[in-house]
């Protein structure tokens, strides 16, 4: 046999073996449903543990539709393959998970298989939840089963062909699902680090957004925490936290994650805002543990970023229209002497990643959409300017802010980016 033929046969064998394995995975038995939802547990410690995990995992955000009932599903998740709608995880027997046993719930979290045996899409982060311990899964189950049941049928997904054919997910699982608990760490680590790693890699599923996706929508193995793109926002990398204008610390990162504001950085916005909102309900020790772990992801590097890149030759004539817009629209809060800046330890505009990163995307999103109210704290709030400023004016004001505040070289192709992002948002 020629070597060419050998390769062809080997390749064919691999494909067939893969197909057989995929078919085996694709066929998962149904787990018999309960006739009625299990009675809500009266074990308060167990329920409190479940509530804590639900906050750490931010379950509610994806599993609650706009103006819908808590955990009743319906929120859309836009993916490159179409829109997936989160399902109802209240204990309603007919439309929720009321008929699910603990075994079925654990299988869904660990293998991505629904109670009736169909495969779930990995938009549900089971590649992370598979890390969770038996006790934690049992606590989360007890907590969800103690929610108010809501009758809310699933919204049909809008996926492109052939991805609407669920058994294909079996192949995805073979390639990308690494089942089971985390391996022991390579070197000895503190208890906080271990707890943080478990929470971040497991229930917290940070990497789901903070790791870039490959062509099949899985996290790229070689680029953990290198940043990504979610809901039209750039997701900052978590493996360069020491490269910020002021390197992140455990205190700053914990404050950011628990309150949504870090005095030496910025306010959480876009898709991060609800994450911080829910982490605020988790115990401080858990959030500090997450911060401890995340900070360990940045390779030791000389703290270089304090000095900004070569200051641009700010052409005052070009920046003039932007300055006029900034003075009227932005300076009321962001100018150095503004009360909004000087009270309550609010961060300076130039410290956040928004104006400092190479991509203007998040700066444009902030100007277009602002940061919506969350509770009554004005610390996170920014009004939207999408109806106030034209594309040209947004370009001008951002060019000015980038030069005058971040003191970095001008962004490339800012006009095209503003036009493109406004168009994306209107879809």
């Amino acid at each position, binding site marked *: 046999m020629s070597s060419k033929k050998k390769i062809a046969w080997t390749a064919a064998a691999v494909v067939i073996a893969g197909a057989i394995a995929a078919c085996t995975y694709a066929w998962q038995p149904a787990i018999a449903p309960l006739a009625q939802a299990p009675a809500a547990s009266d074990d308060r410690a167990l329920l409190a543990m479940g509530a804590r995990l639900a906050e750490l995992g931010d379950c509610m955000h994806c599993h609650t539709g706009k103006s819908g009932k808590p955990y009743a599903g319906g929120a859309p998740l836009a993916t490159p393959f179409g829109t997936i709608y989160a399902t109802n995880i209240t204990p309603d027997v007919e439309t929720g998970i009321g008929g699910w046993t603990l075994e079925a719930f654990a299988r869904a979290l660990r293998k991505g298989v629904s109670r009736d045996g169909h495969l779930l899409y990995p938009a549900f982060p089971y590649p992370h939840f598979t890390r969770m311990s038996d006790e934690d899964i049992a606590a989360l189950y007890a907590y969800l089963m103690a929610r108010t049941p809501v009758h809310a049928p699933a919204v049909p997904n809008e996926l492109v062909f052939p991805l609407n054919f669920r058994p294909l997910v079996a192949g995805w699982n073979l390639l990308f699902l690494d089942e089971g608990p985390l391996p022991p760490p390579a070197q000895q680590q503190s208890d906080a680090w271990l707890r943080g790693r478990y929470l971040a890699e497991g229930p917290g599923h940070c990497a789901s957004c903070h790791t870039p996706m490959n062509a099949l929508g899985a996290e790229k193995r070689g680029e953990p925490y290198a940043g990504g793109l979610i809901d039209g926002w750039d997701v900052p990398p978590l493996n360069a936290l020491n490269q910020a204008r002021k390197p992140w610390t455990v205190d700053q990162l914990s404050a950011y994650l628990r309150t949504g504001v870090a005095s030496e950085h910025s306010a959480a916005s876009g898709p991060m805002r609800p994450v911080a909102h829910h982490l605020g309900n988790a115990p401080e020790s858990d959030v500090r543990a997450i911060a401890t772990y995340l900070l360990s992801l940045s390779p030791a590097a000389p703290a270089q970023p304090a000095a900004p890149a070569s200051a641009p030759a700010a052409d005052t004539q070009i920046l003039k229209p932007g300055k006029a817009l900034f*003075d009227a629209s932005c300076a009321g809060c962001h100018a150095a002497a503004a009360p909004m800046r000087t009270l309550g330890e609010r961060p300076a505009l130039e410290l956040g990643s928004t104006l400092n990163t190479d991509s203007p995307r998040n700066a444009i999103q902030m100007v277009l959409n*602002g940061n919506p109210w969350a509770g009554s704290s004005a610390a996170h709030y920014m009004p939207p300017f999408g109806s106030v400023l034209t594309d040209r004016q947004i370009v001008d004001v951002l060019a000015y802010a980038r030069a005058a505040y971040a003191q970095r070289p001008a962004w490339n192709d800012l006009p095209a980016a503003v036009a493109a992002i406004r168009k994306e948002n209107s879809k």
Partner: protein
Amino acid sequence: MVTLTVNGVKHDLDIDPSMPLLYALRNHLQLNGAKYGCGLGQCGACTVIIDGKPVFSCLTPVSSVGSRPVRTVEGLGTPQQPSPLQQAFIDKQAAQCGYCIAGMIMRAQALLDERPGATEAEIREHMQPNLCRCGTHMRIVSAIVAASQALPKRQADNDAPALAGASRQENQA
């Protein structure tokens, strides 16, 4: 020189391009309906309509307005002939101190122009940025609901399919 088109009238004003629109309206055009509340885009007392969209005029630079038409509460009606929306506010006695009302009316007007026959749920969501410290929100909402329901039914029916699409898009955003 800055040119503003307010309630259909063009004005050439010799003002700083970084002046907020609210100051130009109140101090240079004597249009005192829109109010200064917080100056931070948090209360909505300064709301006016630019090119069909409700905006906080306290944060809108005059240099950003350009040729886009500005509408203020003075452009809706007069004390003798209030607009239907203004009349609804009077009928429901929606004002207590009245400071927020011009902004409330303009934000509501933008919605009723775009979506005649808007439902109470749509109205509540749309009005969210505007605050009333007296607490007459319930009367304000009921005034807007009354005005929305009183709009010509035919217009609402004609627009219904397009509007359903618009609201669906908004929900997804």
